């Protein structure tokens, strides 16, 4: 079946864009993530799979310090972006998040116009010098997010008036407008129908040429379709991490196999 194709993609990039070493996350007393070591490769789609509550979203939110907004969360260990520790005291999470963009589970466009949604990031980071440049960035981002043709005639319309799939692609356009180096996606298709999902997946594959993409997903088929590398989380542990083809066809850990074959999770 086409959907289940597991291509032996050649993983050209091998340099680690982000590296996590011994990451522990506590929510209050709850030890949510235990000792995670992982390398996120450049220009690669990395999928995090695992049953609900296994810590994959938690780990994703560590990568751009969104966990800072949760008062009870504590992160130990080190996560580096191009060899710079992102939890260093000198790091401003604001500049980090400009480099590590994020797309959320539920499409959450600002209740503003489509144009303003995309222009917001470049505006607050001062990436453009004038209106013409901003227009260009907005158009480029919307084109990259494969939504330009649908919205080019109504950039002033509210972003919340779009359909679910369009909203999610708008959110992706918003995230890539700041030209991040890494794009984090937290179950970006869980609120979308199959057609919109297919569009977003196609988009993810295209985005790979410019960013590394990290995607959390509940759908193993999706992980198999879009990613080159897959990490399997279970009960707060990183059980297995490797090339997607190998994880899905020849997992080394029995828990991975159980999950993939549907016996747990």
């Amino acid at each position, binding site marked *: 079946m086409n959907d289940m194709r597991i291509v032996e993609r050649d993983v050209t990039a091998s340099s680690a864009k982000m590296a996590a070493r011994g990451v522990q996350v506590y929510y209050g007393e709850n030890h949510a993530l235990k000792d995670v070591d992982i390398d996120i490769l450049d220009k690669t789609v990395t999928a995090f799979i695992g049953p609900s509550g296994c810590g994959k979203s938690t780990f994703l939110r560590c990568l751009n310090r969104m966990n800072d907004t949760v008062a009870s969360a504590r992160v130990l260990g080190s996560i580096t972006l191009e060899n710079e520790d992102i939890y260093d005291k000198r790091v401003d999470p604001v*500049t980090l*998040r400009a480099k590590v963009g*994020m797309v959320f589970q539920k499409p*959450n466009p600002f209740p503003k116009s489509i144009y303003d949604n995309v222009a917001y990031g470049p505006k607050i980071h001062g990436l453009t010098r004038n209106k013409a440049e901003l227009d260009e960035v907005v158009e480029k981002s919307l084109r990259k997010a494969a939504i330009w043709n649908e919205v080019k005639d109504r950039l002033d319309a509210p972003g919340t008036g779009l359909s679910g799939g369009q909203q999610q692609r708008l959110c992706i356009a918003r995230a890539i407008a700041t030209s991040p180096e890494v794009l984090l996606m937290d179950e970006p298709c869980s609120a979308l129908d199959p057609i919109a999902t297919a569009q977003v997946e196609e988009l993810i594959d295209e985005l790979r040429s410019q960013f590394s993409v990290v995607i959390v997903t509940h759908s193993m088929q999706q992980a198999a379709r879009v990613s080159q590398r897959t990490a399997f989380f279970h009960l707060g542990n990183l059980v297995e991490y490797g090339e997607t083809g190998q994880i899905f066809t020849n997992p080394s850990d029995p828990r991975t196999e159980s999950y993939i074959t549907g016996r747990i999770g």
Partner: protein
Amino acid sequence: MSDATSQMPAAARPKHSLFEPDARTRRRNAAETRFRFFGASAIVVAVLALVILLASVLGSGLGAFRQTFIHIPITLDATALDKGGNRNPEDMKKVTTIGYAKILEQGLKAAIAEKGLTVDPALTAKQIAGLMSQDAAAQLRNQVLADPSLLGQTIEFSALANGRVDGFLKGRVTLESAARDSNISPAQLNLVSEMKDAGLVSLDFNPAFITSGDASEVRPEAAGLGVAILGSAYMMLIVLVLSLPIGVAASIYLEEFAPKNKLTDMIEVNISNLAAVPSIVFGILGLAIFINFMGLPQSAPIVGGLVLTLMTLPTIIIATRAALKAVPPSIRDAALGVGASKMQAIFHHALPLAMPGILTGTIIGLAQALGETAPLLLIGMVAFVRETPGAPPEGFFDPASALPVQVYNFTQRADPAFVERASGAIIVLLVFLVIMNAVAIMLRRRFERRW
């Protein structure tokens, strides 16, 4: 294995036709019908109460906007009113209202004679002059002092009629009640009826009720709300300018930035408690701090405004925090996700979304403050103030009154004519409240339409 395939527990459910409700269903339906009835009756009672309130206030208060005037030609005798003959306003001020009262008296007598009205011989000259308000002379004097060129001319003057005469035209005073009244006699009222038929006396719209200051107990016909309206307006301005920024800033800090610990918990609880503190307590506080300690003047809108600000703050803070809490966290996440700082996320996204709620809270707080009486009594705003306060900012320190206090003041006075004044003041107060609510709704619409 799912439970769907397992055996259903054998509940004893007798077979029953769908067309006939069983006893349990009937009871449930009856309960619902009863509840609906109670709800509808509550609405009916509430609407009736509102209608009765409005009807009574409007019924007794609308008359205050119309006043009886006596229209007579007055010859302003230059020799009597400007003894120096040089039209110098300083010299002319030496002629007091007594001088003008004499001229009015002569004018009224002449007018009655000219129309050929029958005057009861028992009526004294003083009684005839008494048909006019004691304020009429002051009115005429002010008019002449403002325009000395009127001297020597004959002008058409509309003199305020006495409160009893006004009551007679409005049906409050009758010939029977006048027989028992030492202030007016039936003979006087008969004369008024004739004057009315001759067109000398009529009920006209009375702008002075809204513009002029309070008047003493014996001349209700001259009492107005000007000082009270201005005082209330000044106070609302102060309350708005102080409480909105302070309240919103406090809420943003508490809601978004403050660490959640015992101290902020305590602050939070106490803000809620402050909203329930009796307003008179704020009056005592204002008296102690602003007047006794800081030495601000008594009866001044600045003190009233500060006290009402303290009172309004909890309302605004609670409303603003609720509005901020209601902004979906996904919007904040979205802003933070593209690299907005916390403050940018709040000011660019959360605050605009919370704006309708904040405005509603602010207007509710302002409306409360506008109707507040008790704390103002304690800081001296209950004083009798006739002089209109000056323009801001100096005017904030001039003595003034406030609308609700003026209502209270009017109701304390003996003359029945003040009942009408009090109701009229309530109408003005209600009109202001309606205007404020309309503004709130308008602003809310505008902010909501932007999204």
